[in-house]
């Protein structure tokens, strides 16, 4: 029997023929933005991405992400003052991320497993670069020049490379073995380091004819004298010289009480080294404790180890008394504020104090070892950038001054930033001329600060990042639970006294992943898939590549849920048709 077909309420198609994208008046866009930590990092490290990769267990990739912006993670993970943590958006939620702990972990893991980084390098260039000084600035400059395709030689006057890293910062903060591994990696990229080779002023001109550019990274290796009556080479020892000799393996006499004049990290390093060599130490600072430029943690540890701290005392005069010295001190008081925000000190009338010590160290500041190291900032034709200065010789060859020689804030990470900036500037000069330097560098800024990104300079994926710095209120904290910050274990005070063993101990990979997992990844898509999950119109498509997500604009109605539920502001809503 032939049955007549039924025409009844029964469907036979999907709704996919209805392109609801026509409803839209707002349109979402995946837009990675800049995290505040990366903008605060002088080296401009892509911290949000580093943490994201670490949390996913991709330690090597995270480490390579650091190396693109900073060749010395093992160093910075130990001695950087981590301004990144100070700007961390998580601080207002529970506590800032322990970024430096993770950075150190990544470097140590790479070292322990003898990892070789796979990094992009530009094509080989004809020019050769000479670097004078193998401190952080010089090492950084050489590294980045090499990335950009230039052959690079470093000339170092001391027997081993590292500058302040090797000869200034004590072993218990930065072990030499760690430094050697970091420097070894720089060398394995093709950098030639010539140690024990001092370059004189006359040899400089020779260099300028054999190389296409010279980077001056000699730094400050001489402590500033006190400038008080009674100061002699015997009565007042150079703090930096003391540290250098200890790092060379010597054990200068330290018995009795040593006075350390100054308030910076050098002063604290000297005091704590004296303790470890069996002596007692007292830091005398003309301002207050809160004005000391030294890292607060260092001060705390110093005092735990028995270092005394005396505030508001400036050196007045020194009198020899047999084997000892009588140090006359002028008392200071606070009156108003200096323009850098610190209290302004004035002598407290005629009040004085005195102390009798075995020896006196000066660590009140540092200066160049030889005057010609200093950049001549008054010369016309000098290009002054934020972290370096470029002077051109008679033949037009660039001589770049960087590191402590030119940086407003003098520390390791700023020095690294300086080397990077110099490399970018010189490369731009070679390729496009000096007029292009400013704009080229400006396009590599991280966010709105002074930090620059070499990855962006080399046209890496990071160039697609928006300059917008993610604010704490742009994070959807509904997706995060309170979780305590990792506590990096540390040697006990009893274990520290008398030993130069590294104080901060390592953490396990487990803890590193967990801590990295606390990172909000501000502005950076970490494939959490909230957008995909919540789209009412199934209009978020996941591509084959793990990192690919895109919107199917045939159906997207512009409801904005993807942007609102992105915990880290990696989706931007804009007007349709714009």
């Amino acid at each position, binding site marked *: 029997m032939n049955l007549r077909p039924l025409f009844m309420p029964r469907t036979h198609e999907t709704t996919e023929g209805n392109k609801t994208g026509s409803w839209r008046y707002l349109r979402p866009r995946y837009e990675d933005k800049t995290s505040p930590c990366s903008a605060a990092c002088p080296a401009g490290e892509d911290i949000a991405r580093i943490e994201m990769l670490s949390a996913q267990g991709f330690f090597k990739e995270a480490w390579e992400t650091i190396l693109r912006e900073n060749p010395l993670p093992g160093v910075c993970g130990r001695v950087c003052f981590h301004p990144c943590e100070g700007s961390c958006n998580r601080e207002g939620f529970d506590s800032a991320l322990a970024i430096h702990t993770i950075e150190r972990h990544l470097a140590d893991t790479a070292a322990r497993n003898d990892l070789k980084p796979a990094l992009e390098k530009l094509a080989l260039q004809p020019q050769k670069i000479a670097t004078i000084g193998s401190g952080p600035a010089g090492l950084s400059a050489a590294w980045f020049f090499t990335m950009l395709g230039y052959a690079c030689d470093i000339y170092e006057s001391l027997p081993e490379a590292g500058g302040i890293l090797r000869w200034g910062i004590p072993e218990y903060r930065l072990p030499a073995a760690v430094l050697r591994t970091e420097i070894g990696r720089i060398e394995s990229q093709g950098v030639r380091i010539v140690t024990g080779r001092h370059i004189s002023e006359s040899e400089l001109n020779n260099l300028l004819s054999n190389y296409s550019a010279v980077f001056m990274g000699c730094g400050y290796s001489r402590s500033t004298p006190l400038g008080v009556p009674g100061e002699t080479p015997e009565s007042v020892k150079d703090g930096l010289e003391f540290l250098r000799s200890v790092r060379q393996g010597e054990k200068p006499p330290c018995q009795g009480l040593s006075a350390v004049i100054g308030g910076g990290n050098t002063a604290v390093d000297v005091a704590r080294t004296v303790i470890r060599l069996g002596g007692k130490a007292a830091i005398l600072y003309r301002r207050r404790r809160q004005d000391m430029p030294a890292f607060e943690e260092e001060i705390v540890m110093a005092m735990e180890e028995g270092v005394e701290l005396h505030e508001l005392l400036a050196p007045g005069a020194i009198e020899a008394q047999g084997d000892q010295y009588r140090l006359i001190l002028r008392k200071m008081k606070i009156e108003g504020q200096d323009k850098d925000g610190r209290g302004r000190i004035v002598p407290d009338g005629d009040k004085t104090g005195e102390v009798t010590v075995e020896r006196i160290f000066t660590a009140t500041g540092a200066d160049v070892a030889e005057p010609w190291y200093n950049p001549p900032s008054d010369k016309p034709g000098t290009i002054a950038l934020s972290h370096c200065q470029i002077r051109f010789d008679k033949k037009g060859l660039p001589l770049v001054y960087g590191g402590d020689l030119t940086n407003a804030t003098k520390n390791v990470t700023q020095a690294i930033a300086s080397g990077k900036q110099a490399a970018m500037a010189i490369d731009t000069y070679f390729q496009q001329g000096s007029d292009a330097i400013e704009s080229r560098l400006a396009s590599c800024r991280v966010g709105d600060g002074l930090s620059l990104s070499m990855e962006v300079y080399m046209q890496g994926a990071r160039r697609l990042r928006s300059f917008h710095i993610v604010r704490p209120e742009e994070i959807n904290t509904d997706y995060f639970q309170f979780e305590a910050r990792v506590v990096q274990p540390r040697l006990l005070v009893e274990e520290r006294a008398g030993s130069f063993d590294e104080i901060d101990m390592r953490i396990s990979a487990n803890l590193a992943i967990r801590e990295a997992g606390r990172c909000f990844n501000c502005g950076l898509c970490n494939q959490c898939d909230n957008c995909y*999950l919540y789209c*009412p119109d199934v*209009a978020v498509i996941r591509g084959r590549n793990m990192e690919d997500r895109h919107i199917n604009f*045939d159906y997207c109605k512009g409801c904005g*849920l993807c942007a609102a*539920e992105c915990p880290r502001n990696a989706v931007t809503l804009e007007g349709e048709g714009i």
Partner: protein
Amino acid sequence: MHSGHVGCPGCGATIAMRLFMKAMGEKTIMVLPACCWTVIAGAYPTSALKIPVLQTAFETGGATASGVRAALDMKGDTETTVVTWAGDGGTFDIGFQSLSGAVERNEDFIYVCYDNEAYMNTGIQRSSSTPYGAWTTTTPGQDWKRMRKKNIVEALVAHRIPYVATANIAFPEDLVRKAKKARSIKGSKFIHVFASCPTGWRIPSELSVKIARMAVQTNIFPLYEVEDGIHYTINQKPKEYLVREYFKLQGRFRHLTDKDLDQIQTMVDEDWALLLRKAEARI
């Protein structure tokens, strides 16, 4: 679920369906009484759903599913799950009898009520699931709803069925877990899903999920499960936000004064305390 459906931008009911169907899979037959999803699913000849769907009259969610289940049992089909997907109107009000009858018989099906707290499909009229304090077109102006929201979950718990649970689109893993759990149990299962409605609640579409989340965080819509009408498990420790944070984001509550909000806070606190007592009671 296919794209191209005609749900409003940000519609919570579509998010609910999508998450639920992830948990259910292909071997599912859905009974769909009159509700927003009747329209969202698409007009003839299209369908936004990838499974067989039987659309049915408004008040018949429970009864129709009973019939489908009986037929599948007679055909020896032990793999297919029968699901009724109904709105609050078809569950709390006109469909309540059919639902109560079906679960009293402990019919083997999952009844999901996606609750947008009013008769949204017909244009935002009040239902017994509309919360205390809300504006709707039939409770306008000063006549805002002064009746409490009917506690459908407790009404179902009183039927002593194997599984009753609340769920919320802002807690997707919890929703999927409960759906899968329901699927594995024999007998009547009821899931009450909080599905925000930007259009009816007068909120911007992008806040749809956030508002849903806040309903849990303020204890207005606690996440909990009840097994066999006796064993209560509270799933989510609330953040104990003040209810006024939730209310002030929605246009449908704009008319409420501080005094009203204080009173509502007391009501919510009482209900939460009552729920805690039930959860702690041991038999």
